[in-house]
């Protein structure tokens, strides 16, 4: 078995009917207003807020109703309102997280948002230690078999 099995980056584009500054702010600082926290959070269904620190090296994390903090990501690039890159840690021990890059471009009356979620191969063995709080979809995505499937 020598076939190469990797997961190509996920790329998405969406057009939103608001100016670029707002598009950027809602995606980042106000992520808690639209992210599906009932299903895709470490304290799924019991998240009080999501904090996005607005600088490179900043942290993105959730705070549960009970006041517990749980890490989501680290900000790698912070270039409002045009671009943001975060290192999405699948586990606190992951040395090489996946990356999500989001680019914002003024487009007519609104803004085009281009997203790329990449480096699945790098999730590494830590994928096996995924928190139980994520729903099965994340479990699927980050299961160890994305790691050495090559």
């Amino acid at each position: 078995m020598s076939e190469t099995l990797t997961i190509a980056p996920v790329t998405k584009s969406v057009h939103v009917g608001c100016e670029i500054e707002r598009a950027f702010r809602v995606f980042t600082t106000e992520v808690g207003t639209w992210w599906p926290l009932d299903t895709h959070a470490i304290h799924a269904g019991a998240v009080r807020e999501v904090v996005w620190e607005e600088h490179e090296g900043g942290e993105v994390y959730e705070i549960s109703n009970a006041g517990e903090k749980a890490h989501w990501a680290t900000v790698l690039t912070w270039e409002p309102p045009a671009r943001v890159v975060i290192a999405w840690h699948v586990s606190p021990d992951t040395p090489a997280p996946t990356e999500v890059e989001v680019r914002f471009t003024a487009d007519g009356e609104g803004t085009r948002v281009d997203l790329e979620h990449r480096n699945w191969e790098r999730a590494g063995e830590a994928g096996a230690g995924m928190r139980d709080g994520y729903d099965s979809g994340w479990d699927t995505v980050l299961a160890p078999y994305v790691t050495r499937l090559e």
Partner: protein
Amino acid sequence: MDALGDPTRRRILELVRDTGPAAVGALAGHVPVSRPAVSQHLRVLEGAGLVRCTRQGTRHLYSVDPDGLTELRAWLDGFWDDALARYKLAAEGSER
């Protein structure tokens, strides 16, 4: 799709991936569950499109199904589609 939600099942998939085509008996020696349980897990994995079964004579051999990756991709695509649809509504909603 939660075929990989079970740690034993993930371990079995890893074994299949690492060893190539493998029979149930060979796999059962590497996990702390009974042979019928291994068979059950393999059926779930097969149902999810993650492994496939071929027959060699009377033996059933299991191997990783590369098409299973297609399903992972489909899940990821769907996740971001849903999330971005919600984002669009939030961004276009009234100013907070």
